[in-house]
């Protein structure tokens, strides 16, 4: 096993004074699903947003430590943020389809990078929709407005949209929080397929989902990483009392 992302002594403090992350050390395994879970406000989303630099520099008071992707320090001022975001895709909690057709939603990321070859764009549409397990459902109406899709389809479209850029890492922030159980199942299944080719970081919307999907899991509580280990271990025999209380449903 190799580590795709190394987070070393990472701390983040927002301008409004609320300390968001304290001294995080974490290794994200390549071609595996790393789950970050815990109660709301624990800093999971902040960590995701830090990994592809989506935090507005205006809002950040203090940032410490290192985040390395294949050895490249992404907090380095010289880091090309546009290139970083191509390498690290992000899927948000609420599916946000752009106000275009289904096809254009997927090609958007490639087009802003200057890709004009229609064949390449079409191939990317088919490949990424297949990977997100959506191709069969919508292949006949690629030019319909994306907003016409159901919520579950929209979220898989958002996943496909990230995949179109052929990223190395995909981060998903509660991607199934608004979906019904069947759609959730489809998304989880496609994640299991995707991890063969990609490194996945998932913030699940429930402990059950965390347990179902995790290869590795980290428990976040109030800005600290309480425990990090293999998924099987953390959900069956956690070492820290707080983790045990949370996964057994005693709080949260």
């Amino acid at each position, binding site marked *: 096993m190799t580590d795709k992302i190394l987070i070393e002594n990472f701390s983040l403090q927002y301008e409004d004074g609320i300390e968001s992350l304290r001294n995080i050390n974490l290794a994200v395994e390549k071609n595996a699903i790393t789950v970050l879970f815990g109660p709301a406000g624990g800093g999971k989303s902040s960590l995701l947003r830090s990994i*592809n630099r*989506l935090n507005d520099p205006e809002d950040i008071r203090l940032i410490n430590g290192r985040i390395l992707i294949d050895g490249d320090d992404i907090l380095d001022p010289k880091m090309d943020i546009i290139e970083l975001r191509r390498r690290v895709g*992000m899927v*948000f909690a609420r599916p*946000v389809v*752009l106000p275009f057709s289904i096809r254009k939603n997927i090609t*958007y*990321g490639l087009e*802003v990078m200057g890709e004009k070859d229609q064949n390449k764009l079409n191939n990317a549409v088919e490949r990424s929709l297949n990977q997100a397990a959506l191709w069969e459902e919508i292949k006949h109406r690629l030019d319909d407005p994306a907003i016409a899709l159901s919520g579950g389809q929209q979220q898989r479209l958002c996943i496909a949209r990230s995949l179109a850029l052929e990223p190395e890492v995909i981060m998903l922030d509660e991607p199934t929080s608004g979906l019904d159980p069947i759609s959730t199942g489809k998304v989880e299944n496609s994640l299991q397929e995707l991890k063969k080719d990609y490194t996945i970081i998932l913030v699940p919307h429930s402990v059950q989902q965390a347990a179902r999907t995790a290869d590795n899991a980290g428990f976040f509580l109030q800005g600290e990483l309480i425990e990090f280990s293999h998924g099987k271990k953390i959900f069956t025999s956690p070492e820290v009392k707080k983790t045990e209380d949370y996964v057994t449903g005693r709080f949260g």
Partner: protein
Amino acid sequence: MKTNFFKLNRNQTQKLGFAFLSLLALTTILPIILIIGLLIYKGGSAISWNFITGFPHDGMRQGGIWPAIIGTFYLTVGTAIFSVPLGIASAIYLSEYSKDNTLTRTIRIAIINLSGIPSVVYGLFGLGLFVLFLKFGTSILSASLTLSIMTLPVIISTSEEALRAVPQSFRTVSVSLGATKWQTIRRIVLPEALPGIITGVILGLERAAGETAPILFTGAAFFLPQLPSSIFDATMALPYHLFVISTQIPEMPVQIQFGTALVLIAFVLSMNILATIVRSQARAKRQW
């Protein structure tokens, strides 16, 4: 039987309430119906091909209003050339780039207050700055610039509102897909805001087309025997012409006054209709 005649049951109260509110709503459209009705009744007989395309003669008591129509068209286009790019650019800056601090809040308050300045004050300002100081003379250029300054606040504030109405999540997603801020604005935010921006632009230009005071000292002519040939010429204009023939000329035939007002209203209303068409086209093209 102790029933009170004035005590209504709740269904009756509801019906009465609806009737009252719809009556009030009707009163708001009554003035516009009355205005157009009166103009057509009193001025409709003046409208003819000669009236639209002819020059005034006999001290403006006869003939047409062509130079005033053309003048108002020039002034509206001139105003658009200056105020639309500047207004939209300012709105983009304020909505997308500026930080929310005291300075930008002050700018915003200033813009809102600018739209409250009486138009005659803009006229005097234009006279001082464009006509005299910059030596543009009383000309289409000076009048258009003056009208532009008056129109800018409307265009900026409505465009900024339209830009802000575009969901923040579109911007976040676009950036997360590797787009730059400008690509995000150019490809997503602007197209989404365009119907609202067009509405704001046309509302502003409409006001400019109908104004008298700002062009009074800066570019409007009482009477010109020929059409303006350059932007440094003065021009006749519909609102000022209407003012002149209504107040400055004795024994003016009433139907010419009302006919001129009718043409001015038609000019402004057709801009309105154009705005509605452009907006619904833009919506239909985007399919939602």
